[in-house]
């Protein structure tokens, strides 16, 4: 090989293995925890709000964790994923085999997941938390709808539209399929399951894992749909005031909905 090789070619093994690993750690692992935390809404407003309090007990470090362990790994995994997709040529019409369909499905669900996550993060989190951004851009077009200290009510409000929750259901299922099937291919890539028998068994286990996570993920959608928003808002305010008093949560009226935020700031 006398020809000059590109950076990608010289480090292809490392790049592809990091891509494979990042799908499980941290992206896949985060997704599972995220879906489980969401599902706690089925225990009621308090249960879900408590988990969000725990996450936000990190204070400003939430941003660091968000970017370092969630946003950047997802961007890394997704952008490389797009590059890899365009390097292959699918051929299911000629070779309609089960694993070949999954090869295509892995790529299709990856793309759905990317656009779903992009929308979801903008809609709920909003990424930029400055006041000017919220007032001039986010609020008018419906971004950054989630308020960590009104976790249940704001999440529920954002998911009241059946079209939105329908798209969320598709997005969640795409993410979960991509994760479960990716887990299976990862086991082959890294050489965990080698023999055809082991690969078969692993595919059943991954299917089972995927099915369980899908049920957990979808159950949260149902849970949010059933939330009584006014009641939840009132309960969240109570929890906030008591949490501040007892010192179990960090005071930050920015993390409240605007009506409650104004009251708190006037205190």
């Amino acid at each position, binding site marked *: *090989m*006398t*020809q000059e*090789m590109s950076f990608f*070619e*010289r480090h*292809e*093994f490392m790049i*592809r*293995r990091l891509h494979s690993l990042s799908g499980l750690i941290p992206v896949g692992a985060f997704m599972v925890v995220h879906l489980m935390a969401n599902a706690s809404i089925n225990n009621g407003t308090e249960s879900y709000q408590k988990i969000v309090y725990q996450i936000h007990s990190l204070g400003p470090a939430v941003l660091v964790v968000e970017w370092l362990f969630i946003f950047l790994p997802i961007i890394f995994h997704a952008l490389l994923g797009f590059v*890899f997709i365009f*390097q*292959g*040529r*699918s*051929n299911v019409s*000629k*070779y309609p*085999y089960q*694993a*070949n369909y*999954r*090869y295509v499905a892995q790529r299709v669900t990856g793309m759905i997941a990317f656009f779903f996550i992009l929308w979801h993060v903008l809609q709920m989190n909003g990424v930029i938390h400055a006041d000017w951004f919220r007032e001039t851009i986010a609020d008018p077009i419906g971004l950054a709808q989630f308020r960590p200290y009104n976790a249940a009510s704001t999440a529920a409000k954002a998911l009241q539209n059946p079209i939105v929750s329908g798209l969320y259901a598709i997005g969640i299922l795409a993410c979960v399929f991509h994760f479960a099937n990716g887990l*299976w*291919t990862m086991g*082959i*890539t*890294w*050489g*965990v*399951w*080698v*023999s*055809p028998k082991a*690969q078969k068994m692993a595919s059943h286990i991954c299917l089972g894992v995927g099915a369980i996570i899908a049920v957990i993920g979808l159950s949260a959608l149902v849970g949010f749909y059933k939330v009584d928003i006014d009641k939840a808002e009132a309960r969240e305010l109570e929890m906030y005031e008591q949490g501040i008093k007892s010192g179990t949560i960090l005071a930050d009226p920015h993390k409240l909905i605007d009506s409650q935020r104004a009251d708190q700031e006037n205190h």
Partner: protein
Amino acid sequence: MIKDAYDQTISSFTVRIERQDGPGSPSYWETFDVTYESDMNVISVLQRIAAMSETATGEKTTPVAWSCGCLEEVCGSCTMVINGKVRQSCSALVDNLLDGTDQELVLQPMSKFPVVRDLVVDRQRIFRSLQRVEAWVPVDTYYDMGPGPKVSRAQQEINYPLSECMSCGCCMEACPQYTKVEVVRADGESDADYDKRVNEAYDTQFIGPQAISQAMLFNSHPTGAQIAEERLELLSGPGGVQVCGNAQNCVTVCPKEIPLTTSIARAGRAVTVHKFKKWFGKS
């Protein structure tokens, strides 16, 4: 059983062939009518077509070019795409192909390799891949090294199926991760210069399931294993085992039923261990 049915019903059948006059020239389709005989294979169909050199509409044409060798599915040279699926034409029996309502045979060259002419493709990249992973037993010495180590019966059972590979190209043709590389010869370019350019183009592209499996075969051979780590390094180079996308078409289309996906997973494991040793030091 199918044969008996056709014996009474058809006297001839249609063969559509995707032709190409030379490297880089456009492909075109020609249709031929071939008189039915019992127990024909695709090679004998091509022999009849060459003898006729006349299309279904009665126009004179050049004989369709194809390559074949052993005629018993062990050399791999007659591999082509028959009715949309890659396989050897010697073992593709007309009586089995003309089943049901479709009384047409469609022959195409493999799509992942440069066409030389008609159904003949240049399979050099397959052999280059074997060179890239050093799929051989290194015996570079004049001295008598004595008999090699014994291979256990259990290991033989694992190695034998892998040794059946005939480098035919089916696994690569069916692989969605394996894409065509064609280097066009420049005007007045010498063979040596052209070969060098071709190999450079091949060397960063996916090696394919066959070469991965052969690397595993020679890493399991007691003398071949002397350069096992070297092979693993090559196997994780550009276009190495990491390119596999786990579509697993290779193992399904392999005419020799070689456990290619097992070899790929073995290679994945071996390379994982090899890299850990390399990065964190052997203990």
